[in-house]
């Protein structure tokens, strides 16, 4: 399996290196779909320039990365292209390894269930074979590395790639099960991945065979341990940032910036136009509603999917990338990399064709309508806004479709595939 992966990595690096050398690189790095105020490379360079001038990068409103990023690039600014390619490679390898491990566990669990005769008899066609699962990790790596979204993001040197690498490493360390050493996803310049800790906790509990039972002491003990480790690593990272910078200026400039959305530069998300057009006295209210919306799904999803933490991670990543304040295509690429893992759900997907068509059409229309609005002046902001709406609806449908398919397969695995009504005729499943 190592040979195809190496080949894939080589192809991916070649494509990126070729694009870096082409004239497209400058064009791509200006695209609002690819870079947001939070992740733009131009702003990292600006931060470094400010540091050189002896001005704190956080005294202005251009730089919003964490101090760790600025000190990283203080040394690596000349090797930025290699760094970003490396970040993509790390993400892909981490995802590859974690999916491989996850598939092993899935297969083992399925074997136990089969031996215990827990599946209904007509569900045999839902059982996954090792043959079809063999290429899934490679497909995941390929989905990430050769996804045009990832390539664009990497060529634009969006720091979203670094974030993705951190999240991928977090997933890997979770799946490998070493709760003691796993890195905190807050290391990235975003606070949304904090919600992933619920999924990680569930996964670790499952791995240690500790049932999720609120009355059991062992459960609470483990939660306390985990919370301590998690908050500890978070504290270490924030403290490290403080000592690197010598002031707390970065907190409002990084996290306040994410939460209060002052920069209304258009992007593929829902925030920019909504808050550009918002009535001033409702701004705070809607800001709270929209931000809570991202974190809100964590608890019900964790309850519903407590047996399937990896799917929960996928759902969380998707929800974050749809509802976060400054989304870019790099965020979408990360959760899309997980799609091959759920390839066994395809028979239950309802509107995958429609959704993929819409996503493709929107991706093509983004630059077109942007050009019409900003450069040609023949369209206005509503055109671009309409496309962002459609794009987000398509993403929502995609995610909820996968969620539906997942739940339905689980239902079939416990109730049988061919369900009958009371009167013996073929039944249809509905949500009630």
């Amino acid at each position, binding site marked *: 399996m190592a040979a195809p992966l190496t080949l894939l990595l080589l192809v991916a690096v070649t494509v990126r290196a070729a694009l870096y050398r082409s004239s497209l690189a400058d064009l791509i790095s*200006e695209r*609002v779909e690819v870079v947001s105020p939070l992740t733009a490379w131009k702003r990292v*360079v*600006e931060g*470094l320039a400010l540091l050189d*001038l*002896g*001005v704190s990068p956080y*005294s*202005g*409103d*251009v730089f919003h990365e964490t101090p760790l990023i600025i000190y990283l690039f203080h040394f690596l600014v000349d090797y930025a292209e290699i760094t970003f390619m490396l970040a993509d490679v790390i993400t892909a390898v981490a995802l590859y390894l974690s999916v491989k491990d996850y598939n092993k566990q899935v297969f083992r669990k399925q074997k136990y269930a089969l031996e215990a005769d827990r599946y209904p008899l007509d569900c045999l066609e839902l059982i996954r074979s090792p043959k079809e699962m063999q290429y899934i990790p490679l497909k995941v790596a390929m989905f990430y590395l050769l996804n045009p979204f990832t390539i664009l993001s990497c060529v634009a040197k969006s720091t979203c790639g670094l974030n993705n690498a951190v999240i991928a490493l977090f997933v890997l360390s979770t799946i490998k099960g070493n709760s003691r050493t796993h890195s905190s996803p807050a290391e990235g310049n975003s606070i949304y991945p904090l919600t992933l800790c619920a999924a990680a906790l569930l996964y670790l509990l499952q791995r240690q065979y500790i049932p999720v039972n609120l009355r059991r002491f062992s459960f609470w003990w483990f939660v306390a341990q985990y919370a301590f480790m998690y908050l500890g690593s978070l504290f270490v990272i924030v403290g490290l940032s403080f000592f690197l910078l010598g002031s707390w200026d970065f907190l409002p400039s990084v996290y306040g910036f994410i939460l209060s959305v*002052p*920069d*209304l*530069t*258009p992007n593929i998300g*829902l925030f*920019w*136009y*909504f808050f*550009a*057009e918002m*009535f*001033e006295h409702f701004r705070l209210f*809607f800001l709270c509603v*929209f931000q809570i*919306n991202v974190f809100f799904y964590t608890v*019900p*999803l964790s309850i*519903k999917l407590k047996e399937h933490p990896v799917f929960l991670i996928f759902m969380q990543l998707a*929800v974050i990338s*749809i*509802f976060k304040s400054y989304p870019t295509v790099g965020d979408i690429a990360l959760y899309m990399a997980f799609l091959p893992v759920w390839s066994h759900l395809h028979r239950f997907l309802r509107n995958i064709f429609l959704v993929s068509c819409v996503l493709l059409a929107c991706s093509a229309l983004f630059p077109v309508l942007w050009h019409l*609005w*900003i*450069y040609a002046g023949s369209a*206005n*902001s*509503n055109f671009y*806004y309409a496309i962002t*709406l459609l794009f*987000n*609806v398509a993403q*929502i*449908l995609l995610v*909820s479709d996968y*969620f539906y398919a997942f*739940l339905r397969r689980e*239902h079939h695995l416990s*109730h049988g595939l061919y*369900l009958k*009504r*009371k009167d013996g005729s073929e*039944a*249809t*499943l*509905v*949500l*009630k």
Partner: protein
Amino acid sequence: MAAHRCSLSALLLIICSLLVFIVADSEKATLTGDHHATAVDNLQTVTETEEGAAAEEPAVEEERRWEETVVEEATADKEDTSAPETVVQSSVPQPKDDFQEELVIRPLHSGDIYASFQFRTLWETDFMRGNKVSHYRLFPKSLGQVISKFSVRELHISFTQGYWRTMQWGQPFLPSPPGAELWVWFQDSVTDVDGTWKELTNVLSGIFCASLNFIDSTNTVQPSASFKPLGIGNVTDHRFLRYATLPREIVCTENLTPWKKLLPCGSKAGLAVLLKSEKLFHSSFHSQAVHIRPVCQDWQCKTTSWELRQTLNVVFDLHTPGQGKLEWSLFKMFSRTLTEACPLASSSKIYIDITDDPQGEQFEVSPATHLLSQAMVLGDRRTFSVYDLTQQITFGTVRSLNLLIRWKSSEGDMLRPLLHAERYVAGYGLQTGEIHTLMYNNHPYRSFPVLLLDSVPWYLRLYIHTLTVTSKGKDNKPSYIHYQPSKDRVRPHLLEMLVQLPPNSVTEVTVQFERALLKWTEYTPDPNHGFYVGSSVISSLVPSIVAMDTNSTREQPLFSSFFPCKEESSYFMRVYTEPLLVNLPTPDFSMPYNVICLTCTVVAVGYGSLYNLLTRSFQIEEPSPGLAKRIANIIRKMRGVPPL
């Protein structure tokens, strides 16, 4: 950083030493000027003797000498030197306050006429010493109260309509940017400078009927080097300085009327009768300003007095093509003639710049005057005809003075200004752009440093790493950069740098910016008109034209002219570039409700679909019984019979 600080202090040192030189120089120039004037005097004496008016001679001579002193001093002031005031009149017991008015008229090479009014009120008082100043004579009470209430040390405010075309018109006596400009030095006793500044702008807004209340933290900066105090005082801590411009401000009659009311004579008498708004605003350029600063009362500078200088500069476009003869008169420009000086004024004069035409070849002035005066103005030696309005003889038999200039030929080349600048926005589309500032050094062999100040609003996000400074195709690294990045909706970008301009070159400063999308309420009522960015300010010590002139050395004794005459070599100059008009991307203003509804719908779709899947479970769909059967079942249930 240390290097920057060093260079800054070096610059300050240079400015200080030049100051001393210029002060010394003004003495010398006075002497030589006197000499020259005596020569002219002798000439005139001959003519006057011929006319048989010898009795007037001593008075005229005395007048002339006096004239020299005043002009020298005024020029020195303009050159940002804060030269100590010379004693105005020693014999007369000095009143505590003093008012002077003057009008300078300069025919410009473009055929336009530049008229510059200056009204100066000096008052030996102290607003700061706790004791309330309650008795006002010449000094306007409204401004006096402003000074004492807000602990203002220096206040400079200007309202300008139109842009001064340096390349066609040369240098103005007092430069000002289009729109409104306000800069204030506060006393170092002020603790809450920002709060005081806010209150002060609101008060001034009321006094001058201008939109100065739109000055807030988003367009106020604290320049570190470009704006130094012009009066006495050596506190240069820029924490007490506030500078703001409103490039969009339209200046009109409602600003002129309160400005005129500050004059002791109002617009009733003196030069101010000429200030009729219907003519003043029918011009190519109009600028009115108020400058308040503390100045020394005497050489020892034991007592200080407050100087209020009200200036009004206007350029009339009298050139009508196709019309054969060119002429202008006071009446033609202002639709008024002068009949008297302001009775409260200790001096009231009109100067006409005849430097370009000493022999009367290009134009003739009538009524002719016998008073001449020479002055160093902006590094150039200029000759003026003087009309003293306090002398009854000036008005002649008709008891009204209507100066008239008739052009005879329109030849002559204007010396290109040594320093001038222009600015524009490059790039297309509404996403990014680039500000280009071009600074021209037209001096043939001297290079000199300039301080460039740029204050850019926050919605044009500057990227300082894209800053390039090139002259003659080579990178020209600024020796000092002070950059303060903007904060969204709080403060603008401030970029100050010290650039050395090589001789005879164009220096181009470029910096890229990104256009922000604003909230819909933050746009102006005409959003597609664009947003104004205030002028850049270029301050410099420019080598003077006199020092450049090689002919002047011929007339001087050889022993005096080996070393270049340093004292005369530089003068202070401030150049404002054009303001910029930049378009920003706009949202659709007509549909806030639609946007709120549509976005919320999408969020609700996400919420709804997830909610559905989270709360419901899969069940087998049982065919629902028909309506009739259901009704029957309800009835049967009421009857207590088992349902069907």
